[in-house]
């Protein structure tokens, strides 16, 4: 029985397709704005996330999936309480670094300048866990589990149908999203 046949016999017969179609289309942009954060903070985090994962020829960047709101919400609800302070500190430090280096806010910089600021910030020594790691982790999580991240930057196959243990990898092949 091939995959299509298996699907027809089981999932469709059981109404699984209907379940699929009825799923709420939740996006982070649709969530309420997090308390205690200004629109400017959120926009700055979105810009930082979009600098880490920019739009490329085949897929949008992290800015396209409201990554600032994701980072704040996830840090608030999922990470230990002190993560919020870490996040605030990182935002302030990154903006201060861009003013020091280019005499302008992070938002006003070119893409190349933003990359320079973040590269230098990530390389700077910090006592304890580097605050940039939190931003990077949350950016990657939010982006690669988003629909564009999973389906365009990676390969997403919700129903593989079978397992192939020996597949020749072409140089252009992306990782599986799951």
């Amino acid at each position, binding site marked *: *029985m091939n995959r299509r046949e*298996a*699907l027809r*016999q*089981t*999932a469709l*017969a*059981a109404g*699984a397709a209907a*379940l*699929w179609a009825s*799923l*709420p289309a*939740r*996006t982070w942009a649709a*969530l309420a704005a997090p308390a205690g954060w200004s629109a400017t903070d959120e926009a700055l985090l979105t810009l930082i996330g979009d*600098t*880490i*994962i*920019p739009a490329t020829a085949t897929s949008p960047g992290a800015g396209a999936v409201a990554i600032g709101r994701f980072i704040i919400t*996830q840090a608030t*609800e*999922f*990470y*230990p*309480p002190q993560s919020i302070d870490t996040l605030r500190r990182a935002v302030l430090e990154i903006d201060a670094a861009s003013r020091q280096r280019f005499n302008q806010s992070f938002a006003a910089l070119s*893409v190349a300048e933003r*990359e320079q600021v973040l*590269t230098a910030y*990530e*390389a700077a020594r910090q006592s304890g866990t580097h605050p940039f*790691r939190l931003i*990077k982790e949350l950016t*990657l999580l939010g982006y*690669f*589990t*988003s*629909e564009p991240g*999973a389906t365009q930057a*990676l390969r*997403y*196959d*919700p*129903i*593989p*149908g*079978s*397992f*192939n*243990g*020996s*597949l*020749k*990898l072409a140089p252009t*092949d*992306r*990782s*599986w*999203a*799951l």
Partner: protein
Amino acid sequence: MTNHPTTPGAREHTFDAIVIGSGISGGWAAKELCEAGLRTLVLERGRDVKHRDDYPTALKNPWDFSHRNKTPRAVVTANPIAKKCYAFDEATAHFFVKDDEHPYVQDRPFDWIRGYQVGGKSLIWARQTQRWSRFDFEGPARDGFGEWPITYDELAPWYSHVERFAGISGNYDGLETLPDGEFLPAWEMNDVEKHAQGKIMGAFPGRHVIQGRCAHLTAPQPQHLAQNRGQCQARNLCYRGCPFGAYFSSNSATLPAAAATGRLTLRPHSVVESILHDPATGRASGVRVIDAVTKQATEFFARVIFANASCLNTNLLLLNSTSARFPAGLGNDHGLLGRYVAFHNYRGSLSASVEGFEDSYYSGRRPTQLMMPNFRNVRKQETDFQRGYMVFFGASRAGWQQGNHAPGVGAAFKDRITRPGPWGIYMMMQGETVPRKENHVRLSSDRKDAWGIPQLVTSIGYDDNDEKLLRDFLARGQEMLEAVGAKKITARDSKQNPGLDIHEMGGVRMGHDSKTSLLNRWNQLHACANVFVTDGACMTSTGTQNPSLTFMALAARAAQHAVAELKKGNL
């Protein structure tokens, strides 16, 4: 005390058989009893979960979860025990007991992972299924800590019986330490796993690397299609419930089969408080049930009672089933009820990286892994510890998560981390623990749950044998990964509490001798023959195998015996 004849509505409350619990072993008892013609009542303390209809997250995408399938801090804080389970997350939390709703007392730390719903933990099990070997049944007697009243040969046909119906994938490996069963085609190994298999088996004769065996339909047979179950789609989202019915659960397989006979009555929200003992007959007459919602008490009656409430809850239920004849709990004439509880030692794991194989990849998500049957102390005592361990392992390439620790930003960084990263390999142990009399559960003398039932006290811990066995696994694992040519080998002792293995067994152990055991060779209480215990509580020892397949085989075998005894007029 029974009040059978005078209970209002006694007729409607009387069945041929009662099965307490609808999980993996209760489902089997129900199916076999119903198919043999018995009107059977299945009592489940949790809510109903209908196959497919009640798997709300089964087909969700990562972006459909508000926390992207991470568990929010508030849920973690409220569930300090459940959240330790690897399978507990935003997509599956609805199938796990919430810690604050079902408290218990930890005399010594024990992580008790539970699933209270129709289907029990059969919805959220790891689905790895291996037969025990004769060495596992003979081990306790050889090593002087117990005695199984059955042999491998006696159970083998019942393994076949449950395997054919459930659908077990695996290779015919021809190993005495892990007997073959009735198999559907096995899953494949990937290229690095094949490489590891060759290196390990070349360097260490007697250590067999085989593909894991699991309860997934890799090629559904007519009996599976008749159950309306389909082929495994290699999604590996099993803990959400499978809309294809591709893995075995009570919900997808045994309960529908029982229902199809027209003789099944399934009653959710039914907390069984105790089994009733009738002094006139010397038998159990029925059960006392507290409605989980209304908290109203009711009684149900039957000639045969199967206790399949899950290992520790079956212990609790028998301990709480006191009467003039059994003041210390049903069948407990010697104070051994609740004792000799054992589990699996999961503390050790190793991980490493494997260089090369850069143009090799895989597709699909395999719901099992490689394994190595126990090779320690198999034919005789060889080490400074008793018994042995099974090893699980597998290899895979890093995905986008490789970017979490990699420096860089921008298009080149994005490009790099969206391509398959280096290969990693891991190993973990599943060690046998020796049942000790002091490892026990008992009833709390002062604390009760929301239904007025005494809370369970767990007093279960590791001992020196477990520490030695762990050290041996870590040393053998290191040498095997070195033989594979792996680099950056890291060995780890998680120090996890007993219980988190979710393989707790014993407390109502089987044995020939009624002075040293609770159950006879047919899983009947020595002292109350119409009560059968066929869940993890019945286990005399733990073996190194995942235990569910053995619970299923024991349940089916005991049910058939119960029917035969009823027909002979012995029950």
